[in-house]
């Protein structure tokens, strides 16, 4: 499972405060702990007004890169900003995100075409978020056409099929599961991603809903996820699900993550005699 660590995001009040106060230590600590928890990408999102978004992103990305080699996920609602922020990064990371809205793809794909950068792509377009699986797969087809034009291999794409709130859904997550399965069937090497927590908006005990969602989505092909890597319950559940799905030969990943304390309570080292 590819873990995209979500905690450095200006939409979180404590991070917004740190950004305003230019509190480097706060940001760097978040980078460090998330990296140590075995994240594959550290997401960096400024969430400030457009006029100072880029400079804020640069400040944040520089700080993160001072304390960890884990690749950055440059995160902005503006694809143009994402494309520019790529230049701040020392090593290839992840663009978060593009979609078939406007010319987002054109702003990012040419820039990453001949690099090792990966890219999150949301399945929505100028008409919004399509309601049916069929329509959403049409957006996917259009996106893959673009990827082909720019010679971006499916294995560099993280498709986010956009799960909606369970609280207002008519048929649970069945539609999105269908989309995930179809994408996985067509492109075995593509990544399918999503935010682990969107599904539970406006419900109590959200963590439980999020966990159930991740397990079901993994069974449908989800192999990349945006979450808090310090959430031990979720991490343990993901490792367990990988093993149950037969993706973890002899449960070695599960055991090793347990030993590292990614989840559970690691056994006490035997007392020295």
């Amino acid at each position, binding site marked *: 499972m590819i873990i995209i660590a979500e905690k450095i995001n200006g939409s979180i009040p404590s991070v917004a405060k740190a950004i305003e106060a230019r509190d480097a230590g706060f940001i760097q600590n978040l980078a460090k702990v998330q990296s140590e928890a075995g994240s594959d990408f550290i997401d960096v999102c400024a969430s400030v007004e457009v006029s100072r978004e880029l400079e804020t992103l640069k400040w944040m990305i520089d700080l993160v890169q001072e304390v960890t080699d884990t690749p950055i996920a440059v995160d902005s609602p503006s694809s143009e900003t994402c494309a520019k922020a790529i230049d701040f990064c020392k090593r290839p990371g992840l663009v978060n995100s593009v979609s078939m809205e406007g010319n987002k793809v054109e702003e990012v794909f040419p820039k990453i075409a001949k690099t090792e950068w990966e890219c999150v792509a949301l399945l929505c377009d100028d008409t919004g978020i399509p309601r049916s699986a069929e329509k959403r797969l049409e957006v996917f087809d259009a996106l893959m056409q673009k990827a082909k034009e720019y010679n971006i291999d499916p294995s560099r794409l993280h498709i986010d099929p956009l799960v909606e709130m369970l609280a207002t859904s008519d048929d649970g997550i069945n539609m999105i599961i269908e989309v995930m399965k179809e994408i996985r069937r067509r492109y075995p090497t593509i990544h399918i991603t999503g935010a682990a927590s969107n599904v539970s908006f406006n419900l109590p005990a959200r963590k439980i809903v999020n966990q159930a969602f991740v397990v079901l989505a993994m069974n449908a092909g989800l192999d990349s996820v945006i979450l808090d890597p310090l959430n031990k319950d979720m991490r343990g559940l993901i490792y367990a699900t990988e093993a149950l799905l037969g993706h973890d030969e002899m*449960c*070695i990943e599960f055991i090793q993550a347990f030993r590292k304390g990614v989840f559970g309570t690691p056994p006490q080292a*035997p007392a020295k005699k």
Partner: protein
Amino acid sequence: MAKIDEVKEQVIIGKTKMVPGLVQAALDEGSAAKDILQAMIDGMKVVGDRFSAGEIYVPEMLIAAKAMAKGVEVLKPSLSGEASTSLGTCVIGTVEGDLHDIGKNLVNMMIGSAGFDMVDIGVDQAPDKFIEAIKNNKNVKLVACSALLTTTLPALKKTVDAIRESGLQGFKIIVGGAPVTAQFAEEIGADAYAPDAGSAAEKAKEIVAA
């Protein structure tokens, strides 16, 4: 660190991809094949001890044995030229009426990793099948009988009795399985008992050397 020591370390942590290359490197460095084999056996002893102590899990023991097996493959051509390093043949099986083979397979793997040539006759084997296997294989030094169920404990006794009555000699009998105790093993006339796969390998070496 000498390559031969690295072989041992990598067997312990089950690096199946690393071990073959390191075994070759150790040979290139001039270590004798039998010493490299011994290093791997020593590594597996560490693994067995850790398993017996509850410090590691079954997959970690399995992957260590797999790593050793990969190393032995590389070693084989060099080993055949040297004097035999085998501790002898071990016939292993689950007694009549008992179909459980997971524990027996673990013990098979660990005794094999300790330096025995294994003959696994499988599950649900009648006493005469054990006797047949002892007759048909060379240099049998050890017979290992497993029973997982309380209901198959009598079959364990029957098997040990039959082997003794056959008059065949030159080997020791070790028994094990969840309901088996050291006391029961002694009562039915077995030479040894082990509570788990790690200690089975140690006991095996011990009684065969005695």
